[in-house]
C-alpha cells in the first residue's frame, strides 16, 4: 500500500480552479517531484497535503487513513518545509532546532548538533533569526525537518536560496532519506535536483 495517496484533489479560488482532481500515490522510500510553471498549483498542492490549506474536494490519505493534521500521529509522521515558516525572534538557531526536537520527544543534543553541522549552520548556531541571511533562514527551515521523526517529507522548492554546496548536500540528504524509507513529496524548479533524486515526476499545469 502507498504511504501517501492523493485522490481527486481539487482546489478553487472563487471561479479559478488551481488544482483539478489531482491523483497520485507515493510509496515509502520514494521521492515524487512536483514540476510545472509558476502558478500551476505546486505549492497549493503541498499545502493541501500538509494540512496548511483546505481542499475543496478530494482526499489525502496517509498509510490508508484520511490525513488529518489534528491527529498527533500525523504530526509525528509528516515533516513539512513550506515557505510559511516563521521564527521566534528571541531564540537562536540551535535553540529553535532543540525546541522542535524536544517537542517530538528528542532528548539528545548531539543529533541536533549533527544536523546543524550538516546544513552549514555551525557559524550561526547562536545567532537570532533577525541576523540570518535568507539562505541561512532557508537552511534552518530545512534543518527543522531533519531533527525530528518523519515518514513523509513535504518540501516546497527546497533548493531556493541554497548555494552550490548547499544544493549538493540537499541532494545527498534526500537520497539518504529515500534510502531510509522516508517518502518525499517536493516541488522544485531545479531540473538537475529533480533528475538526481526523484523517482517520479508529477507534472502540473499542463
Amino acid at each position: 500500500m502507498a504511504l501517501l495517496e492523493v485522490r481527486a484533489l481539487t482546489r478553487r479560488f472563487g471561479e479559478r480552479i488551481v488544482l483539478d482532481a489531482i491523483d497520485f500515490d507515493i510509496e515509502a522510500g520514494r521521492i515524487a517531484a512536483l514540476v510545472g510553471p509558476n502558478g500551476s498549483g505546486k505549492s497549493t498542492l503541498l499545502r493541501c497535503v500538509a494540512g496548511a490549506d483546505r481542499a475543496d474536494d478530494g482526499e489525502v490519505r496517509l498509510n490508508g487513513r484520511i490525513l488529518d493534521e489534528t491527529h498527533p500521529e500525523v504530526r509525528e509522521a509528516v515533516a513539512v518545509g513550506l515557505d510559511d515558516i516563521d521564527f521566534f525572534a528571541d531564540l537562536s538557531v540551535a535553540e529553535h532546532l532543540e525546541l522542535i526536537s524536544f517537542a517530538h520527544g528528542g532528548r539528545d543534543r548531539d543529533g541536533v548538533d549533527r544536523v546543524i553541522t550538516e546544513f552549514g549552520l555551525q557559524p550561526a548556531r547562536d545567532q537570532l533569526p533577525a541576523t540570518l541571511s535568507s539562505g541561512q533562514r532557508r537552511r534552518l527551515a530545512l534543518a527543522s525537518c531533519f531533527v525530528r521523526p518523519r515518514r513523509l517529507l513535504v518540501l516546497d522548492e527546497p533548493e531556493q536560496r541554497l548555494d552550490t554546496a548547499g544544493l549538493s548536500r540537499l541532494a545527498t540528504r534526500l537520497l539518504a532519506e529515500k534510502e531510509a524509507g522516508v517518502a518525499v513529496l517536493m516541488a522544485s524548479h531545479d531540473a538537475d535536483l529533480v533528475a538526481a533524486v526523484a523517482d517520479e515526476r508529477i507534472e502540473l499545469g499542463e
Partner: protein
Amino acid sequence: MTAPLRQRGPSDDPAPGSSADPVPEPSAGTSFGPAAAPPPVRELRRRLRAGRRRHHPEALTELLGDLYMLLLGAVIYGAMFLSGAPAQWRALTGTGDPAARSWLALAALLAGTGLLWQALRAVGPLLAGPATLSWVLSAPVDRRAWLRPRFAGLVAAAAALAAVLAVCVTVAGGRTDGTELVVTGITGAVYGVALAGLGVVAQTQPRRRWPRLSAPILMGAGAVVALVVVGADLARVPISPIALPLTAVLLGLGLPAAVAAVVIGLRRLHRLDRIALSSGAGLANALLVSAMSLDPGQLVALVESRRNRRTGKIRGRRLRPAGRWWLLLQADLVRLTRRPGALLAFAALLLAQYALALALPSLAGPAQVVGAYLAGGRFTAGLSQISRTPALRRMLGGPDWLLRLVHLVLPAAAAGLFWLLTVPVGAALSAEWTPAVLIGMVVAVYRSGSRPPMNYGGAYAVTPMGMIPVDLLRQIFRGWDVLIGVALLVLLLG
C-alpha cells in the same frame, strides 16, 4: 495509522563521520521502533519561556508597563465618559419615540452581534502565532493542553470587554442606577463569553454551514426589525414598546449558551487544525499594526487582497468605444460591479439614517452628512488607486487633476443620491445653504478618497501619545476635517 510505524529522531542517529570531516554524512534513517513520547505541555512551555527570556529578559516588565498604560487610559477616559455621557444623552434624545427606540435598540443589537460574529470569525478567534505553529504545534504535543490557557484568556477578555461595553451603553442611555449597571455588566459578560466560546466551536467545524450563515442571518434580522419600525413610522402606524426586558431575555438565553459554548469549546480544542489557528493571524496582525501605528493602510490592503483572492477570477468586460474620459468612467463602473458590498453598505447606511432619525431626531442632520460621506466613500476604490499610484497615473496619461475628477464622478453621485434619498429624514436646510453643504460633502469625500501614500520620512509631531509622523495626522484627518466643519454647520443651521 494502521501500523505503528515510527521513525527515529536525531538521538538515534549514528555517530557523525570522522573528526577530519566537518560535514557529517546525512543522518537520515528510518527505524520503525517506538519513538519517544512528546514532553508534557507544561515542560515544553517552560523550556520555550526560559529560552526566550535568556535573550529578552525585560519581556515581563514590558508587558506590565503596557498593561499599566492600558489601565491608566481606561480609567481616565472611562471617568470622562461616565461623567459626561448621561447629560449628553438627555440633551440628544428628548424628542425620540421610546417605543421605536426600544425596537431599534434590538435591531442594533442583532446587527451588531452579526458584525461582531463576522469579525470574530475573520480573526480566528483563537490564534497561534506562525512561529508557534512552525516550531511547537507541528509536533505531536497535546494541542488541547497547549491551547487551554489561550482559550481561557480569550473568554476572559471577551467577558471583560462586553461587560464594559454594556455598562457604557447603559450609562450613555442615561441610566446610572448601581444595581442595574451590575446586572447589565453581568449580562454583557455572559454575552461576550457565549460569543467567544461559540466562535471557537465554529472554528473547529470549518465545513459546517451555521458559522457562515449566522452573521448574514443576524444582520438580516436586525435590518428586518429596523425596516418594520421605519415602515410603521412612515405609514403612521403606532407600535408598542418591547414588552420583555431586553437584559433579562439576554441573560436567560445567554447563560446556558455561554456555559455550553465554553464546555464544548474546551472539549474540541484539540480539533483546531493548523488552518484554523493560522488563517486569522494575518488579519489580527494587520489590525494590531494598524491600531498601533494609527495607519489603516496595512489592514485595508490585506482585506482587499483577501477579497480579490476569494473572487479569484472575473469575467472581463469590453468597454464601449468612446472618448478616453468616458472609458475611464466605464472602468470605474465596472469596478463597482465587482464590489457588490459597496451597494449593500449604501443600502444599510440609508436604513441607518431613517432609523437614527426616528430614535435620535436631534442627530439626524449631522448624521445625514456623515452618512453621505460614508456612502460616497464606498465608491472611491478607483479614486484611491489613482491617487496612491503615480505609475498608474503616468500610464493612463493626461493631467492628474482630470484623472482624479473623472474618478470622483461615481463617489460624488453616490453621496448626492444618499442625500437626496434621505431628505425627508435629514437636515432641515434652506435652499441657499443646501448647495454649500453638498459641495462641502463632495470635497470631504474627495479628500478622503485621494489620500496619497503614507510618508514616514517627514517631520514628527510631539503629542501626549508620543512622537507621531505629521503625515500620519494628515492621513487620519484628511476628509474628516472638512466633514466635521460641514456637520457643525448643519448642526448650527438646524
